[in-house]
């Protein structure tokens, strides 16, 4: 049978890419990790490692949500603005509007989820590309942040609220626990639940998913809502950590977040990838920035290196696809 011959050959390719998908990014990460460690021994210091993960967790929490949206073939540019807006709301409840811990946590999360819901709702029901919708939202909520804050950062959080971003559980910073928790839960959801499998199906072939009886729009809206919610969580962590609701908070986050997801091997075309890759992708960006800082390298290089990594990651994805169809 000719079919069998074909299958054998593709298996070789496939095995390579399965291998690459699973460990390629991890390998790249380890190389960078060891390299920096060799250059500055302090890099391996447990405190530094915790620092990096903590620094990464603010972006990382959003990147977990973004993984869902990109897997669906979508994109969200408004995450940075959601971080700023939810952050300023949290700060508002802490400092100006009565100081309730409960409200300053719950309201921003709900608002984040709400904005995400709107992103999903408008783009699916209005049949608009999420790029456009979230670009609009990015501007709207940056403006709304300035409006609520009246142009001034709001600072001075209560110690209880400060725990979210600055607290420690034993030796481990609380944001790290939140971040890793999100990664693990998202990993389980993507692998083991109907929701997760349908995300892959929709991203892989929306039409086929629809014809298989999947309520495509509902899943899309859910994914955007989840991302909004996690952006809100990130806003809480940031505000708590900075002890201040900042106007410029989250500016440019969308790039780092999308970069983390893409470097982690999730395809911008949708349908392929996963959250563990995103974890490594986010760590890679964080490690590069931290390592260059420790080495005292000019900051300009950080931007250049980050750009190169992102292009390289996307190139790899493209190559993977080309090899597969050949």
């Amino acid at each position, binding site marked *: 049978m000719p079919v069998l011959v074909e299958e054998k050959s593709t298996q070789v390719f496939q095995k390579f890419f399965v291998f690459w998908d699973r460990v390629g990014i991890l390998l790249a990460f380890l190389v960078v990790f060891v390299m920096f460690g060799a250059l500055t021994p302090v890099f391996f*210091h447990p405190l530094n490692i915790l*620092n990096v993960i903590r620094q990464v967790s603010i972006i990382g929490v959003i990147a977990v949500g973004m993984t869902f949206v990109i897997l669906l073939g979508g994109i969200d540019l408004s995450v940075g603005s959601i971080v700023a807006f939810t952050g300023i709301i949290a700060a508002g409840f802490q400092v100006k509007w009565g100081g309730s811990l409960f409200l300053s946590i719950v309201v921003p999360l709900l608002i984040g989820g709400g904005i995400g819901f709107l992103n999903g709702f408008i783009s699916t029901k209005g049949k608009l590309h999420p790029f456009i919708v979230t670009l609009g939202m990015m501007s709207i909520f940056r403006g709304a942040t300035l409006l609520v804050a009246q142009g001034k*950062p709001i600072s001075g959080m209560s110690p209880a609220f400060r725990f979210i971003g*600055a607290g420690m559980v034993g030796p481990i910073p609380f944001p790290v626990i939140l971040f890793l928790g999100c990664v693990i839960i998202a990993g389980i959801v993507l692998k083991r639940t109907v929701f997760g499998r349908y995300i892959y199906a929709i991203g892989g072939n929306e039409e086929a998913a629809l014809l298989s009886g999947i309520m495509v729009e509902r899943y899309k809206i859910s994914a955007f809502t989840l991302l909004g919610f996690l952006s809100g969580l990130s806003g809480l962590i940031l505000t708590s950590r*900075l002890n201040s609701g900042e106007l410029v*908070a989250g500016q440019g986050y969308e790039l780092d977040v999308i970069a983390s997801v893409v470097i982690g091997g999730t395809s911008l075309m949708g349908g392929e990838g996963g959250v563990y890759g995103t974890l490594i992708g986010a760590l890679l960006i964080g490690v590069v*920035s931290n390592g260059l*800082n420790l080495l005292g390298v000019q*900051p300009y290089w950080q931007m250049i290196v980050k750009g190169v990594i992102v292009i390289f990651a996307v190139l790899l994805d493209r190559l993977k696809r080309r090899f597969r169809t050949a």
Partner: protein
Amino acid sequence: MRKLILGLVIGVFLVCSVLGSLVLGKDLTIGLSFPSLSFAWFAFLEQAVKDKAAQLGGIEVISLEAENNVSKQISIIEDMIIKGVDGVLLVPIEVEAVIPAIEALNKANIPVVTVDRRIKEGAPVQILCHVGADNVEGGRKAARFIVEKLTEKYGEPKGVVIELTGTPGAGPAIDRSAGFNEIMKQYPNIVVKSQTANFRREDGMKVMEDFIMSTPQIDAVFGANDEMILGAIQALDASGKFDVKEVITVGFDALPEALKLIEEGVLDATIEQFPGKQAATAFEILVKYLREGVTPEKPLVYIEPKVITKDNLNEAEKSF
């Protein structure tokens, strides 16, 4: 057709504003064009100008929102020319892009005073005067303060100093760092380590965390704005490795939050540039020129920056 309507609208506007000034007995109309009033900083400048206008009397101040958008600022200035303002007080969003608008003002014989930010040097346009802060001098003062404190601590000027610089390429970031390093260079026993934190608190914290890891000894930290030093202080505080009160910390801008930390003894100093005074002075120069024909002696007026410490807290403007 559209031009006709536009003309009509402008005409009505003109008549109204002239009538308005007459009715209210105002003899001068001055346009303010700031990058964006949604930032507290510029809102504060505007307030300072309005206070000054009330004090001088008889002046109508028109202030339009440019949303931090260069082309919007240009069209706002063009509108002001059509409206027939007597003078313009300008904070350019960008050093170069605003030049065509200034050319138009020159052509219409409307004097311009810039404040806070300067337009590009050597541009072929006429500016009555620029009033600003001397960021280089501010940097120098911060450096001298740190040198003095280090000398107190060690008996001689030595130690490790971290410098958090502003957004790469931004004018104030360049000037403040230049002044700071000009002084520091004179002390070979002081090691300065620089890294940018983009004028942001978040980055100040992050970069400081990395410095804490890579640098065993930190005697002083200079943040080229208060946001960054506030972030750095949090990183120091959380590190457990350093006592914030022991490390000499100096910020820039004299934000209320920074002043509060000075009062608490956490932050050692911040540099006050008196933005309100800058704006008011600029406005006064413009009015004086329009009413009395007095041309300022120098085309550049610098308001002397000042180091604010626990001892002279009351001298700060408490800008916003």
